[in-house]
């Protein structure tokens, strides 16, 4: 793990005004929403703390283009000319992204708890807060690994677009997999449906999990080991793929 790379990533994120602005907006939106429903509308939201979608957004904003933008403006070659391995570089980037996004996610949770404390102090359950916090960190760690791979494959912030396209494809696959088919003619169309639909469904479900790797901690005693294995498999595989692909990549050098 290279501390210099981590600090560089954090500073780079902070240096971009656009990124910082969008991050603040996304960070404050759920807090404002909760505050308005609690204090102004006197409507008690079912879930006191925002869910995983907002955390995923935070990770995407913090981490998009962390490697890609260096590929883009040619600074990656200079960085990798120093005595560090590509594996160290990738792991440091991952660490930097997930720490930064975890900080954002946990601070958002803290702010939401503060708001709820002023209005509905009796409804704050420390166990709930801890669980939500742990789930947020778990999502940050997992999604950062996914983002690191995407960022190492494409330049600039195209990894964001890549991510969105993959999400849509996953949803599409799930949709195909759940097609309600009526009166399919027997023979090869029926065979195709019976093979294609489950395959699409599983690919879609796998895709959805990969694009938001999470372990649900709400019933701690009942966490299926397959989910835990899947989660760590996603992280290990994606980081491996990132290192593998960067190792074999020819870095842009000159115009010839």
């Amino acid at each position, binding site marked *: 793990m290279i501390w210099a790379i981590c600090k560089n990533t954090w*500073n780079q994120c902070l240096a971009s005004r656009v990124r910082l602005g969008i991050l603040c907006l996304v960070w404050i939106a759920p807090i404002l929403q909760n505050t308005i429903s609690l204090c102004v509308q006197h409507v008690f939201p079912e879930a006191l703390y925002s869910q995983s979608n907002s955390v995923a957004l935070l990770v995407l904003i913090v981490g998009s283009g962390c490697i890609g933008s260096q590929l883009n403006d*040619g600074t990656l070659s*200079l*960085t990798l*000319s120093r005595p560090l391995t590509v594996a160290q570089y990738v792991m440091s980037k991952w660490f930097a992204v997930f720490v930064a996004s975890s900080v954002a996610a946990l601070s958002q949770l803290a702010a939401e708890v503060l708001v709820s404390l002023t209005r509905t102090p009796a409804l704050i359950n420390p166990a709930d807060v801890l669980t939500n916090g742990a789930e947020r960190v778990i999502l940050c760690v997992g999604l950062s690994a996914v983002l690191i791979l995407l960022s190492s494959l494409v330049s600039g912030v195209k990894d964001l677009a890549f991510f969105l396209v993959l999400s849509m494809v996953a949803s599409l696959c799930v949709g195909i997999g759940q097609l309600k088919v009526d009166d399919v003619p027997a023979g090869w169309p029926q065979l195709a449906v019976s093979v294609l639909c489950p395959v699409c469904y599983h690919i879609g479900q796998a895709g959805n999990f990969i694009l938001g790797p999470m372990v649900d901690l709400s019933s701690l005693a009942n966490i299926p080991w397959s989910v835990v294995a899947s989660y760590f498999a996603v992280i290990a595989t994606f980081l491996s793929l990132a290192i593998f692909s960067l190792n074999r990549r*020819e870095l842009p050098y000159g115009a*010839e």
Partner: protein
Amino acid sequence: MPENESSLTIEKSGIRIDGLCKTYKGGKVKALNELSVSIEAGEAFGIIGPNGAGKTTLFGCLLSFLRPDKGTITIDGMPPDALEVRKLVGYLPERLNFDKWMTGREFMHFHHELSGLPRDVRLSRCDELLTRVGLDPTSWTRPIKKYSRGMLQRLGFAQALVGNPKYLLLDEPASGVDPAGVLLLRRLLKELKSSGVTIILNSHQLDQVEKTCDRVAFIQQGKVNGIENLQAGPAHDTRFLVRWTGFESQIHVDLSALFARHGANLIESQPEYCIFVPSGIDTIASILKEMLTEGYAIIQLTPEENRLERYFDGESKKSPEDKSG
């Protein structure tokens, strides 16, 4: 076996490039074609060649950014992608793409830290390097996006020197630098060379190369087409220009015969000057002596052109018979 050991050590140091091949676009573009060259430790080695010759590709392979299809490169006996080699090599890229949001000082500190060097000397070492390359101290705290081309060049050079490298790869170091900067660069390179740093210089500015380097390789179409040893005097086939006043009509001397007597080749003959290629440096004096005796009022004798320019001049390839007469 001290002899074997020392020869091994000698063999291990320096850069050996052997049979390097690199193609692009699935084999259609041959950037490097069996390129072989040997660079000794401690020497200043220049690389020149026309655009598209493969110089940049060579640098890319030396820094292991590009993977050659065939051939080997060793730097101090190690492959170019070894971790140890990274500690020994500093490089100044041609394209000065630095993180624009960092200040000059932050950039230096970043590379100092990346090189694994101790924190306690960081500030002093980076400041020392920035001063050495002549970067104005007021700009050290300014973001890099505000730097001019010349400032970027200096910063890049400072960054190359961060790890006290044994090998310095410089790609167009004087491009965009003002004359004062060029002089500073030349002085710096001299200092570095005297402290034992091996310098590999890729430049289009031939006079720069000539003044700094010990040897120069001319690369064309992915191959080394000639190595000029600048430490030896002018090459035996350097062309000289001799100029005189007075009218040739008063002097009836068969110049070509005169030159032929001394084993020299008359390339071009004009009323007030001629160009010849002596067979050896030592014959020039006797040629001049005879011309003076014949009555030529010689006012100038210089090598006709920059010796490296020859490589770029198609003329040098033509035989004297084609040119004279």
